[in-house]
């Protein structure tokens, strides 16, 4: 006969160990404390604390890694809590910390220094470490949190070493934690990633753009003042070619800017073999969704706008983009950051980019002057509606692009990027001197714009046009900003009449 026995209360108190790690939220690292509790009971392994599927699967990876590194996996009831419990945890980057805390709780790893370090990294089943995304942001966050060092996969070492003021300990396998704990092994701090040249050899050069002096000039002005540019012209006229050459004439990234770009690239797993020296160039396809363009989702992922931070966002076939996607770009264009509201709170992603867009004049691309254009007025109107919408309102420059003539195409190559870039850099320097570091004319407030020194004739020209009501207030300020950039390019101390007239010609007009 069977009797029901109550189990006696555990005579041995449960053992608790903790470790510090991080989870990625957008492009920011959020600190997470791993608490492991091992006590008697049916063998079980649970992870709590809002883990996503990748975190929950850490159970199997951690179990296999521990066994395959020659440790013993405790046959007890194991509960892993990821604190704070209200924050969603995503990704496999917490494997190493969970394993370390578990080994510590089962008294296989006696490491007094565990409380002083942060651990990040994914584990393979054989116990070796695998690189993760966002190591740079995590290393910086670890420093802010007062950790002495960050233990991480060897592949992430170079990127984490970019963060100064914190020890970087690269490990290749879980077993190496034992040597670290014993103090008989301390790996050298890895070399930080090198700064890559701002123009890689063989990159597209502006010399490829032959003829088309106005388009070249528009590109130069856009680059010099950070102005957004819209190119309208038939297919094959060189719009995409021109846009692709823009990064080669933009000034190189300042060190602080390069770090910002690297942080974003690291969080998105796009950081290559070095710190980017050139500006990012992103050209999303026109079928992109609003979330893809500005970021979103759960967990939050950075969109193309953020990936283009400090660089160029090129929207080819602007009128083919979904309207909601274009609308989503409006506020970020104005504020330089995307803010995404979630239940857990507001997240913001940086996105200070230069907008460059290209469009055909009508849906068939030929333009109404072409006798073969088959578009109906309604089609043209609807197509152009996107050009005059709220997004276009943020565009400073409009360049009408035409097919280059046969003589131009067969002619000599244009001025190379390096020569143009020198002028652009000189103009940017003048702007920084006037407006402050890192700022350009496109970002001038209306008050700053109106404070630009204007020659009498230029002022008369602008006032004349304004008085005839051919200029809205916004267009007035836009013309001033453009004229200031032209003056900066010319090295003039005040805006001359010629520059004002040019700016009035190059500006995007308000009518549809």
């Amino acid at each position, binding site marked *: 006969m069977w009797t029901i026995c109550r189990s006696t209360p555990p005579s041995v108190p449960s053992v608790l160990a903790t470790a510090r790690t991080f989870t990625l939220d957008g492009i920011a690292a959020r600190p997470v404390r791993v608490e492991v509790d091992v006590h008697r009971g049916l063998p079980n392994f649970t992870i709590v604390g809002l883990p996503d599927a990748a975190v929950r699967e850490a159970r199997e990876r951690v179990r296999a890694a521990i066994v395959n590194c020659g440790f013993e996996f405790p046959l007890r009831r194991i509960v892993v809590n990821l604190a704070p419990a209200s924050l969603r945890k995503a990704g496999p980057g917490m494997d190493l910390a969970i394993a370390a805390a578990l080994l510590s709780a089962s008294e296989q790893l006696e490491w007094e220094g565990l409380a002083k370090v942060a651990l990040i990294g994914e584990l393979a089943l054989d116990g070796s470490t695998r690189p993760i995304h966002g190591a740079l942001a995590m290393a910086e966050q670890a420093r802010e949190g007062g950790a002495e060092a960050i233990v991480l996969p060897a592949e992430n070492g170079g990127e984490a070493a970019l963060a100064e003021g914190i020890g970087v300990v690269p490990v290749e396998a879980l077993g190496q934690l034992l040597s670290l704990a014993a103090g008989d092994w301390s790996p050298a701090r890895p070399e930080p990633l090198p700064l890559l040249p701002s123009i890689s050899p063989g990159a597209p050069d502006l010399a490829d753009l032959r003829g088309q002096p106005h388009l070249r000039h528009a590109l130069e002005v856009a680059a010099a003042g950070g102005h957004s540019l819209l190119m309208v012209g038939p297919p094959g006229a060189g719009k995409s070619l021109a846009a692709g050459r823009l990064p080669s004439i933009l000034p190189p990234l300042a060190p602080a800017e390069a770090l910002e770009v690297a942080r974003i690239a690291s969080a998105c797993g796009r950081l290559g073999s070095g710190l980017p020296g050139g500006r990012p160039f992103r050209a999303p396809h026109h079928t992109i969704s609003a979330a893809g363009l500005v970021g979103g989702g759960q967990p939050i992922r950075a969109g193309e706008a953020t990936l283009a931070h400090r660089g160029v966002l090129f929207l080819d076939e602007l009128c083919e983009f979904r309207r909601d996607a274009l609308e989503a770009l409006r506020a970020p264009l104005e504020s330089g950051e995307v803010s995404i509201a979630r239940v857990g709170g507001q997240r913001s992603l940086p996105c200070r980019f230069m907008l460059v867009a290209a469009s055909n004049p009508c849906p068939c691309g030929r333009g109404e002057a072409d*006798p073969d254009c088959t578009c109906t007025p309604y089609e043209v*109107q609807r197509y152009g509606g996107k050009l005059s919408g709220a997004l276009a309102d943020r565009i400073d420059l409009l360049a009408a692009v035409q097919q280059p003539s046969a003589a131009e195409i067969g002619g000599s190559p244009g001025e190379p990027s390096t020569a143009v870039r020198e002028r652009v850099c000189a103009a940017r320097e003048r702007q920084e001197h006037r407006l402050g570091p890192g700022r350009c004319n496109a970002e001038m407030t209306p008050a700053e714009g109106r404070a630009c020194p204007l020659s009498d004739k230029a002022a008369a020209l602008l006032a004349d046009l304004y008085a005839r009501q051919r200029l809205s207030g916004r267009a007035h300020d836009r013309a001033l900003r453009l004229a200031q950039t032209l003056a900066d390019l010319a090295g003039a101390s005040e805006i001359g009449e010629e520059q004002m007239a*040019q700016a*009035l010609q190059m500006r995007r007009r308000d009518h549809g």
Partner: protein
Amino acid sequence: MVELGACPECLRRSWLLAALGPYVERVATGEVGSRSPELLRLSNEDLVQAAAPKVAGQLLARVEALSEARLNEELLLAECWACCRHGDLYPEGLRDAADAPWALLGRGDRRLLDGLEPHGAVTIVGARRATSYGREISRELGRELARAGMVVVSGMAFGIDGCAHRGALDGGRTIAVLGCGPDVAYPASHRGLWRQISESGLVLSELPPGAPPWKWTFPARNRIMAALSGMTVVVEAATRSGSLITMDLAADLGRDLGAVPGPVTSRASAGPNALLASGAHVIRDAQDVLDAMLGPGQQQHSGSPGTATPLDADLRIVLEAVEAGGSTCDAVAAMTELPVTTIAAALARLELLGYLTYTSVGTVIRTLHSGHPA
């Protein structure tokens, strides 16, 4: 009758036409004898018999039953007024036409009809699918003719019509003749224009308030447009275009015909070019219209050549390049030896002086202006 401004008999004709809308749609084929303006010559009884023989008696009875008070009320509700062929307000020009509407319903300023003679009005017609050249010319013609004191008549359609009205609203008086009730804004996206014209100009129609447009009502309203004015100018039209119907109707009435020349390769200018070949007046600007209608030199228009200030050498070179077909900065640069910055500045000045204007896609077009805009 004083209250209505039109006799009930004539007004009932309008209501009858609206009731016949779908029936005439089936009969009017464009063949000689069954075009809508030809059908509209028929008396009430014949017209109903021709269009809707099965329900003829019913329709006639229904329209006959409309009381004077009811007609009056409908007009008041739609903020319209009316005049008929027996009244004083009825335009002189329409009396020439055999198929003239019995009554005209208007919305807006009735003084525009007061003493309106054909030689005081110009009709501008053209394609809905117009090029930016056509639209610009149409706007300029509308504006300058209105400034010269002419009443600009058009049909409020997309393209040339709309631009002629917009230009005319800038400069003076305009009349829109609709193929639907005068209180119906058609096309709907022109309701802003419709509101403007009904406030500061005049919207006319032979159909009662609320009547929807039918295919046949457009050639029908074209006959009113053609008859109202002394000259009909076509700006752009393909070879088989409704605008050319208006030209035919105007020619039948013995009115002057004008056409704006365009490139011989342009489909949009095929209609006017063909008309020019068969002897229509060449219309290059408002002055050409005035000369053709009133006799050469009878009225000097302010925006005419001769008052222009001489241009700097650079501006002249750039303007000539634009006139030769250069529509972008790059195209002008390829045609001249000037640096692109000079060209940009020159284009801006020329725009300011009124020689050029920009399209929404950033290309430049030459305006009719030869001097400073007033």
